[in-house]
């Protein structure tokens, strides 16, 4: 316990709190920028068990902000979950680290909730996975802590089932096109600030200091020197299909996008479950500074080096890859 002495000295934690932290299980979905930072802080804090889930591998462009990784990891192209586990174990071998290289859509993901989790931390980069986590968190009655950032702008909010509004109460449905770190950029301190908020709320939940949990959503812009705490209570919606009186957990049922590799063309085709509003989509892509061409039938743009074509009927082609994982990731980040 000596190694946690400075944390035990902090009176809202103390010896009692440290024992609670030690007995708890945290799930972190995605170990990119936010997931790296929160996984590291909770490992250093001495959480009992930490499960990390990620489908991606370490890339050179990650190193600018994803604090668990070093050049060697990018050089070897290790899966993030594996590289993260290695570093976390070197930091604190007392913590049981379970690493899954998988998609949150994969079957075993649900079983993590079934086995019991004390808090879930959002390290994802897309809304589709967040809506899925939200439904699972409500269904299995687990608090989860939203965090997101882009540029110098960040947000965070801890959702407590039965108390606060849920993610679907806040964001009624998926935005049609997404601002992400890959089109707007990001600076590392934005990540660390969101991760600080997420980790602080996680510690409050782990030591069961309910009264200390922040009941507002924080939103800030580090470059523009703005910082606001916005009360959310009014958004709690009794009719919400995820947390309301009659629940259908839509994300656990929604049709998934169908994917296929087009033979010999280095192209992946994805079938979006709805049609695309090409005009609106084109406007937003333009607003984020990308080039885009469109007509009534299709829209062409380039995302992270991949020529991408959207058809009004919901079909989408991602050129320059045969990797379903890559294509799925692009699709989810920008359109899901």
């Amino acid at each position, binding site marked *: 316990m000596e190694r946690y002495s400075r944390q035990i000295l902090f009176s809202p934690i103390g010896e009692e709190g440290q024992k609670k932290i030690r007995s708890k299980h945290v799930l972190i979905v*995605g170990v*990119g*920028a*936010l*997931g790296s930072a929160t996984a590291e802080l909770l490992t250093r804090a001495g959480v009992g068990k930490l499960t990390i889930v990620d489908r991606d591998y370490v890339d050179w462009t990650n190193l600018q902000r994803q604090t668990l990784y070093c050049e060697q990891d990018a050089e070897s192209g290790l899966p993030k979950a594996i590289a993260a586990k290695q570093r976390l174990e070197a930091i604190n071998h007392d913590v049981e680290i379970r690493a899954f290289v998988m998609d949150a859509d994969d079957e075993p993901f649900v079983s993590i909730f079934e086995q019991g989790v004390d808090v879930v931390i*959002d*390290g*994802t*980069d*897309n*809304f589709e996975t*967040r809506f899925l986590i939200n439904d699972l968190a409500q269904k299995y009655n687990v608090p989860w802590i939203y*965090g*997101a*950032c*882009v*540029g110098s*702008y960040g*947000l965070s909010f801890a959702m407590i089932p039965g108390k606060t509004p849920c993610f679907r109460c*806040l*964001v*009624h*449905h*998926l*935005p*049609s*096109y*997404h*601002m*992400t*770190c*890959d089109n*707007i950029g*990001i600076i590392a301190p934005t990540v660390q600030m*969101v991760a600080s908020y997420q980790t602080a709320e996680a510690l409050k939940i782990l030591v069961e200091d309910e009264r200390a949990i922040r009941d507002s*959503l924080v*939103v800030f*812009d580090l470059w*523009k020197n*703005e910082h*606001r*705490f*916005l*009360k*959310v*209570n*009014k*958004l709690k919606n009794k009719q919400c299909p995820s947390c309301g009186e009659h629940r259908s957990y839509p994300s656990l049922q929604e049709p998934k996008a169908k994917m296929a590799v087009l033979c010999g063309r280095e192209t992946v085709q994805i079938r979006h479950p709805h049609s695309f509003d090409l005009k*609106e989509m084109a*406007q*937003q892509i333009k*607003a*984020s500074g990308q080039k885009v061409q469109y007509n009534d039938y299709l829209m062409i743009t380039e995302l992270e080096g991949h020529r991408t074509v959207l058809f009004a009927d919901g079909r989408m082609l991602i050129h320059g890859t045969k990797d379903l994982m890559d294509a799925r990731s692009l699709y989810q*980040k920008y359109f899901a």
Partner: protein
Amino acid sequence: MIRVLLFAHLKEQFNRQELIFPHQEITVRQLREELEKNYSLSSVSSIMIAVNEEFATDEEIIREGDVVALIPPVSGG
């Protein structure tokens, strides 16, 4: 007059810090409609709208002097 503060990429999209609406009273839903029509802001329905430091439902009425903030949820992480 109602001041509407912009956050994140909305600042760049409008190239300003805030929008001014001449109304004395307007519902949150009407504000969304105006943003969509007069400012051709898309994806308005997924933007969170706060009135005086508190998120508001679409039915809520915004009155002259209230401070409104448009908070776009973002997906990066």
